[in-house]
């Protein structure tokens, strides 16, 4: 499959952007500057990037608790994301959502989600809307390996398959649901076999190979756009960090992480890019710097932004009712 140099550069840029954003978030959390739960995407960048590379702004995605990568890949703005992690009023959710609930309707991002598996059926709804309206939009549903044991996986894939909805189910199989390894949470190795239960195409790819992800999802997206229904794409990858920041990861061998670090998707792509002269080393360095700067600017934006007003606490519960405030 021929991928244009421009696409390759864009993908590389996105992967870098995710890596730099996540690394910064990691440090900010460690410094106590970001509260709450933070689930990082480091090591899995190729999945979101490859999967979103075939999408338009008006396509949809649903995301998870580990959502930063998806949101960046779908075109989310680092400033508003970072401001949201800080809980500022300029954040994507005005500080009400935080890391686990970032959404951007203008980019079709139907939200990160704190409930494991919630995206599966929401994605089906978005796919239904596209089909119903007769547009050729698609929805990519991101989810983890462990979420495939949740009720919603089953109900969502079944409904998508009987209605032939334009949904691509992208499983990020990073081998664990928190501390529970895949071998302990399901009796299968390749999650793509579950597609059989819905008579839907299923495929497993190397999730650390952005091109492999791109190709598989691209094909699924084209079929979806043509009205040929949903696909399950499993991408095998690994999370480098603990489940959330602060997790000491006692449940997995250090060597396992070391092995996977060798498969880091970013140097792998860098190698390709340089070997194939898509970019020079100097370009690569410059792009790295640019992404770092972008992340720094985002932090700057976040830090300088205001906290939300107390009045905003009682807004947005409904579109038309403002709830009673508190006198304190």
């Amino acid at each position, binding site marked *: 499959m021929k991928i244009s140099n421009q696409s390759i550069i864009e993908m590389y840029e996105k992967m870098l952007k995710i890596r730099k954003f996540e690394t910064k978030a990691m440090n900010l959390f460690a410094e106590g500057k970001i509260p709450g739960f933070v689930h990082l995407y480091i090591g899995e960048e190729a999945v979101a990037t490859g999967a979103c590379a075939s999408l338009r702004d008006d396509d*949809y995605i*649903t995301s998870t608790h580990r959502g930063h990568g998806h949101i960046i890949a779908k075109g989310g703005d680092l400033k508003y994301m970072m401001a949201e992690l800080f809980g500022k009023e300029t*954040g*994507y*959710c*005005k*500080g*009400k*959502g935080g890391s686990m*609930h970032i*959404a*951007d*309707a203008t980019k079709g991002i*139907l*939200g990160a*989600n*704190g*409930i494991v598996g*919630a995206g*599966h*059926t*929401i*994605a*089906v*709804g*978005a*796919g*239904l*809307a*596209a089909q*119903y*309206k007769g547009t050729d939009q698609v*929805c990519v549903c991101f989810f983890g390996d462990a979420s495939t044991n949740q*009720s*919603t996986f089953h*109900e*969502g894939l*079944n*409904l998508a398959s*009987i209605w032939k909805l334009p949904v691509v189910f992208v499983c990020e199989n990073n081998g664990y649901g928190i501390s529970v390894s895949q071998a302990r949470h399901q009796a299968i190795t390749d999650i793509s076999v579950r597609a059989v239960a819905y008579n839907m195409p299923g495929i497993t790819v190397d999730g650390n190979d952005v091109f492999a992800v791109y190709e598989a999802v691209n094909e699924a997206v084209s079929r979806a756009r043509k009205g040929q229904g949903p696909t399950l794409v499993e991408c095998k990858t690994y999370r480098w960090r603990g489940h959330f920041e602060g997790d000491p990861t006692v449940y997995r061998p250090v060597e396992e992480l070391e092995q996977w670090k060798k498969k880091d998707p970013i140097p792998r792509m860098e190698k390709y890019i340089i070997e194939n002269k898509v970019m020079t080393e100097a370009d690569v360095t410059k792009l790295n710097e640019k992404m770092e700067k972008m992340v720094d600017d985002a932090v700057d934006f976040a830090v300088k932004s205001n906290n939300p007003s107390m009045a905003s606490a009682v*807004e*947005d*519960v*409904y*579109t*038309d*009712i403002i*709830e009673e405030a508190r006198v304190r």
Partner: protein
Amino acid sequence: MRKMTYGQGIKEGMRIRMLENPDVFIFGEDVGLFGGCFGVTSGLFDEFGDKRVRDTPISEGAIIGAAVGSAAAGLRPIAELMFIDFLTVGMDQLVNQAAKMGYMFGGKIKLPMVVRLPAGGGVRAAAQHSQSLEAWLTHVPGLKVVYPSNPQDAIGLMLSAIDDDNPVMYIEHKTLYAVPGEVEDEVKPIPFGKANIKKEGTDVTIITYGKQVYDALKAAEILAKDDIDVEVIDLRSLYPLDKQTIFNSIEKTHKVVLVSEEAKRGAYTGELAAMIAEECFFECDAPIKRVGALNTPIPFSAELEDYVLPNAEDIVNAVKSLF
């Protein structure tokens, strides 16, 4: 004026908006050719086809989840759960997704969706098909909850529910489907948060909704013979709530009885009583009474079910205890 049943009223409300707006559609289990377990959607499949009146698999989670997703993506879904009891199966999609998305996302996504919820006992359907669960729903910030008692309100509330940009829980009492009533020729949306004074009175206020409106009116008739002049308020909309109508009435009668079919412990009537005891305490000159079902699951046997569920006699007794 026309005559139609409550079930027909619900259908009429949906039909009017479906004719006007192609983004409105219905889905749920057996809502198509079968016409729904209680026949409410019968005929709509023939009229609108299988795109707009869709049968789903038995997957309540996916039904509500798909309502959320399709509403977020610009449609106006009406999801039918066959029985409100099956909410338990799609509770996450409703409570953690539908109700919270607007807020969590800073108001940037809106969810115009209606969930139809046939509720209540009286049809010998036992513990898993007879519940009244409005207390759960009214406790969830982000949901609106309405409960019509007659065909006219069924239409008017349905129109408002479909027009609303927030998730609206539309609860229906299954013993009312066949109950007829008068409907104005020109139907209009009934704004949420407007109670309906079904009968004016000066001695005691009965606040209720749904099926118990009929019981309350029957009780009022009986009590009239004892010269107790009852005011009966049909809330229609549980949230938003018409506090003003409640307060005005209590300022007049100084006595209040709250009636619902819920298991009494933790019932929505408790919220009403608490609100009155907090905001209108000095206007009450007698205990705030509640009438509800006993604190049991709903039993199958007709005799037991009739004993567990509240009726007009219980309302009469409650009112009399205040005099």
